[in-house]
């Protein structure tokens, strides 16, 4: 799992494709896998959620519902009503 915050972890990052996106702050193209800049604001992903329990090989569990379904760290959750920011993880 990525431990260094990258552009693709930023709320200002609008993904164009799997490798790059546009920064809403600078309006410039940025590569998804490069380290973030001073405008960084963490986006909502499972890996930043209090309900997320990490598993092996890019998998994990969502504890927000009783059935505890599989989920994965980089699932974007800006639309998930159960997302609860985990400050320590972010």
């Amino acid at each position: 799992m990525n431990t260094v915050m990258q552009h693709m972890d930023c709320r200002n990052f609008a993904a164009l494709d799997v490798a790059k996106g546009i920064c809403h702050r600078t309006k410039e193209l940025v590569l998804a896998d490069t380290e973030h800049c001073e405008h960084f604001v963490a986006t909502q992903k499972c890996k930043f959620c209090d309900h997320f329990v990490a598993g092996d090989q890019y998998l994990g569990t969502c504890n927000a519902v009783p059935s505890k379904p599989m989920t994965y760290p980089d699932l974007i959750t800006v639309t998930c009503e159960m997302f609860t920011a985990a400050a320590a993880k972010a």
Partner: protein
Amino acid sequence: MTRTLAEVLEQSGIPIRLQVGGKAPDAVVDREVSKEPCPRAKKLRDLYFQTLSSATNEFPYWYTRKYSELEGEIPVVRRAAALKEAFSHLTPTILPGELLVMGKAHYYRGSFPMPWLSEGYYMAKEDELYKAALSKGSSSVDELSKFGSGGGNVTQTFGNVVSIAGKFGMRREEIPALLHTAREWAGKSVDDVGHKYEQMVPTYPMKEAIMRSIVCMFDSGYTLPQGREVINYYYPLEYGFDGLLQMAKEKKAEVAGRADGDGLVGMNRLYNYQAVILILEGIQNWIMNYAKEARRLADFESGPQQKQEYQEIAQRLESVAHNKPTTFREAIQMIWTVHVAVLNEDAISGLSPGRVGQVLYPYYEQDKAAGRITDDEVLEWMQLQRVKFTCIDCFASMGVVGGVLSGNTFNNLSLGGLTKDGRSAANDLEKLIIEAAIRCTSTQPTLTVLYDDKLPEDFLLKATECNKTGTGYPAWVNNRGAIDFILNQYGPEGMTVEEARALAIGGCLETSPCSWLPLHLNAKEYWIPGGSGQPTSVGVHFISLPKVLELVLFDGIDQRTGQPVYSPHGKKLESYEEIVAVFQDYFRKTVDCLTTSNNIQHDIWRKQNMAIFNSLLKPDCLLNGHLIHELGYRYNGTYNVESCGTVNLVNSLAAIKKVVFEDRATSLEEIKQALRDNFGFKTASEVGSFSLADQEKKEESGKWDYIHYLCLTAPKYGNDDPYADTILKGWENWFCRMCHDYESLNARPLYACQISVSTHAPMGMATIATPDGRLAGTTFADASLSAYPGTDRNGPYALFESATVWDHSLSQNSQMNLKLHPTAVAGMQGCKKLLALTQAYMRKGGFHIQYNVVDSKMLRDAQQNPDNYRDLMVRVAGFTQYWVEIGKPIQDEVIARTEYEGV
């Protein structure tokens, strides 16, 4: 010294003439018409050129998570709830400069797999995908520019991006979750369940042999089960989503617990309306998530213009999520949203927007009159719509997306045609749509003119101007012929002449049934056309006619694999008539076993994966409470039998008839030996070219030269030669009628569909040499009525005579591609010549014609230097594609097409 076929024939005095009607200038000539998009569209299209085809697991994840929770729920409700969950959780992405917003996924050119349809094609590579996902990815920075050449296809894994299904990139962090999600569908997907039951058909072993030998290209029910149809935007435009929800709730209360005289499916209406409510709520959530994103962006945006644009986007979306549109801008946002929603509901290619210029005309007319919009602003929006359509990708297996579709998604916009009361339906907005397509050239939406003699000349000349951009659009379709076909096929379901006039083209050139519905805007009523039929180009996909002939000649044994496909016929084939009879027998067997298998696949699809949103859009599902799986659509007789390689079959039969049975210049046995030995040439794969002229001789023994000469010089289709043309006529009359003997799962007769899309390349690769002189592995003639390259020697009017010896309205379509050198249609005089040429073909009864206005030398250069031609487009079949995203066999074939130097 190795010689190519072109050199051999040149030395033999029968040169292949790939230029007819003159000689092209030595220098490369560019297309005459070339304009620039508006700045906003240019910027967004340039972004597209830099974008990789990208897949995500987001939609499948949420769909599967909800579906798993609802074990025991009624299937249609369970599916609707899963779709609602998925739509509600799609991440909204809005890019700076966009006015028209929303997309399939959060990537600009995004798509996603649907494992509930089929999971096997990427699960088969599970180990490989896992390894790619878990290996440490090096930084993609250095590799990106290198990978960018050749268009947006991700054909190789790089950095943190894993290539999946040969075309799409997926983030490696998502691969384990993708595989986990897909595993949940193993044994439950339409593919898996369908396979279980299709094996119960007695002819299943033959079906398997047919698929392995590539007599048929692909299955139907779990690959692209919908599409090649015309969407209907009417209900959201007339009622708005809140209005539709209200209607569904009232109808639900009305039918709950009541069979109303239908003991079989009457009770199902309750569940169907409940499903409709769920999916409408999901789509409203999806739209509102985009609205919230626009508000968020507006809040922190510092640029005043961009800030205002975000605010206006939010306002439009907040309105469109609930209300019927009242302005042109709201209406175009609404139809785009509806279009993407249907595409996200199922795996679809060829979801055609239909006659958009006539659907949006009420808003255009009233906004212009009220001073709310100008033509320049409309032009900008229509260009933005083109960029959005071009961003659509369809996730399916490599064989389907690459081998059949060439990566295209076939969103065909129809223009012209007739109104409900039989007048020209062309309007000023349609001329702006053409102008937008001239300025912002792009692959989607492709355009089709529904040609009718009643259409005004200025409109037709505008369309010819567009042809001269070299984009291959608009295609020209015979409106009167299409009406005849529609009436023949759908008359038993109540089709009238008035309603037939609403038709449009779905997909490449699939004539599709549509209806007129009354739109009300500010107390004025407009009758707008929209799709009212089930998907077409479903059923029996692409039967390779030359391959069937190979199996006839070799007693049912595939000469490429050595495996039996059909039971041996055991005939000596002592007459031409006997060969035709055996061919018909094998062809019937093929259609029968593929029909039964595909009927089962589609039946599983409709039981478990039925269209809900697409259904509620189509008349008369909302009114009768039955969706597609209960024949709620107005027209349900849409299944077909598709063919490929018609002209190679006709030319091969002509050669056998003439050389063996009439002239007795050689025996059938000798021809068979020559075919097996590829007339003494290497295979196309060995040569690395799939064009006939480039093929190289193996050795100089000359053993088969005379027989090859006889085959090549036998009568050929496309020269107004009754010898070959009579064979074509006989084939068409038999084929188009025999399809009616087979019944779809909807208990309606099948019909003939004669498009090749891109299948003439892989099917050619799987077929040995043919008696017309074509060599092993080379592509078949494109389309169904284009001449085989270099064999049409008497000009286009002779070709038209040959093509129209049969009644095209017997078939859903026919297809004719013509390649013209740009100098052949230069200037206004050239536009008029092009129109006259088109009218000549239409008036003879030709169904379809389209033009590649391009210099073949430019295509050769583009093949050598693809980096210089990122935006070069060509017409392949019923679609236009970026040159750099087409496979080499099709590139070779397009280069080899006969180039007309004058018309």
